[in-house]
């Protein structure tokens, strides 16, 4: 029997870490992810787990220590947010190109500046090209479920890539919600032990990791990373199927909400999907064919699959919680529009920015976006791209 509890997103991830009992955690505190290493430290102090905790002096060091431990043969994890993630930047790329399956809990927070501790996706979106897998949660339940699945995905022989397991700062990480936890033994047997084929501390087979790869080798290395990233799609779906057997909860690359006959669709990520679902429910009650897609997996980007799911939509609003400062769209908008164009999509597609730096995104905001989509499509309102939702004017 699963365990019914109530806890925050941070507590849920820390609970999962206790169940997984990884070999090494190296972390440096930063709001709003601080609670995760703090709670793990408590588990260690209480003798619940035997994880080696490395209290490092910075996030550059936490990522370096994590990937070093992973290269040595350990199952190694860390957690961070915002500027902490930015400070890891250099090492993120090394972990990915060295194909080290470390798992990092990211509690999404705006990047400074101006200084701001609230949620947006600018931290992990900034790292979207680093070669890491990225998976996003709407709720504490999804943060917990994604975290448990992440090890199987990252460590899979066809993948071997590091993975960010993201949840929205404060909204998900600190809000206490109901949750269904899985028993320790079930989680342990699902995750299994980490048995890397090759590792630095193996005296039987010494090895070199991260050799110099100049122009004759760099592109071949990147192609191999690209293939691993593409392979991850199937692995993510396979792991989700197995996870459903122990949890009863099913996951895909994205979640479709009332998409069967949807004509007006919002595509969004993270906690704001819940808000959008409320708007869909209200519009559906009025007879509007509203639908929503919540992107769960951003890396690898499920472009073809999303385009297929959106093929019958008349108008689509893609919602970005991070600026790109291209003067055009955000990361999700730009990538999804490219995928839609490749698929020959003829729908009206608009890309909006919302919730940046923790700005509220309400059910009314979502309804207004659906109403705009209907008006854009009917030609009764001038079409406007790249709006800031909730901006004071």
């Amino acid at each position, binding site marked *: 029997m699963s365990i019914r509890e109530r806890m925050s997103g941070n507590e849920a991830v820390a609970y999962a870490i206790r169940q997984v009992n990884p070999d090494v955690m190296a972390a440096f505190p930063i709001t709003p992810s601080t609670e995760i290493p703090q709670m793990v430290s408590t588990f260690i102090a209480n003798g619940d787990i035997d994880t080696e905790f490395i209290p490092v002096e910075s996030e550059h060091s936490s990522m370096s220590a994590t990937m070093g431990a992973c290269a040595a043969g350990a199952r190694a994890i860390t957690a961070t947010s915002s500027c902490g993630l930015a400070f890891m930047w250099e090492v993120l790329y090394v972990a990915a190109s060295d194909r080290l399956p470390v798992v990092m809990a990211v509690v999404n927070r705006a990047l400074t500046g101006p200084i701001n501790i609230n949620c947006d996706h600018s931290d992990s979106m900034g790292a979207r090209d680093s070669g890491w897998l990225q998976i996003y949660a709407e709720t504490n339940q999804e943060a917990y479920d994604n975290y448990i699945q992440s090890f199987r995905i990252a460590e899979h022989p066809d993948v071997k890539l590091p993975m960010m397991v993201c949840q929205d700062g404060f909204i998900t990480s600190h809000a206490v919600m109901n949750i269904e936890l899985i028993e320790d033994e079930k989680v342990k047997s699902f995750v299994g032990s980490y048995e890397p084929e*090759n590792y630095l501390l193996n005296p039987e*087979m010494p090895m070199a990791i991260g050799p110099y790869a100049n122009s004759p080798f760099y592109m071949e290395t990147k192609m191999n990373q690209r293939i691993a990233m593409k392979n991850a799609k199937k692995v993510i779906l396979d792991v989700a199927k197995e996870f459903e057997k122990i949890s009863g909860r099913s996951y895909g690359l994205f979640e479709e909400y009332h998409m069967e006959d949807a004509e007006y669709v919002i595509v969004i990520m993270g906690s704001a999907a819940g808000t959008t679902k409320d708007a869909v429910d209200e519009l559906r009650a009025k007879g509007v064919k509203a639908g929503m897609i919540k992107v769960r997996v951003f890396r690898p980007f499920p472009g073809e699959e999303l385009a297929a799911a959106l093929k019958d939509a008349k108008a689509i609003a893609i919602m970005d919680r991070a600026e790109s400062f291209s003067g055009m769209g955000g990361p999700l908008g730009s990538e999804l529009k490219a995928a839609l164009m490749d698929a020959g999509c003829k729908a009206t597609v608009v890309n909006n920015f919302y919730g940046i730096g923790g700005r509220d995104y309400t059910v009314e905001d979502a309804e207004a976006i659906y109403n705009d989509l209907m008006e854009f499509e009917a030609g009764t309102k001038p079409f406007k791209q790249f709006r800031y939702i909730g901006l004071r004017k």
Partner: protein
Amino acid sequence: MSKATDVTKINEKSPYYDITPGNQIYGGGGARKFTTGEWRTETPVVDWDKCTQCLLCTPCCPDSSIPVKDGKREDFDYDHCKGCGICAKVCPFKAITMKEGI
């Protein structure tokens, strides 16, 4: 556990699928087969008349490019010497000079 990587078979003509994940090299000792001497811009040359076989140069070489056999140093391993010049600096008998070029 992977087999030892044959670094002589991974070269500038290798397709991407023949390269190990993360470019990992198994088995160790691969540097011996990888010629790096061409990085040199200056080359150490021994004057055997001045060399007293004190062997001070050998442990100072950062690239293990001064082989020793039967208690005596031999000529440089020019496949791996990068011409840093430390040996010339530490030699008390000025038996090593740096010549320009490879």
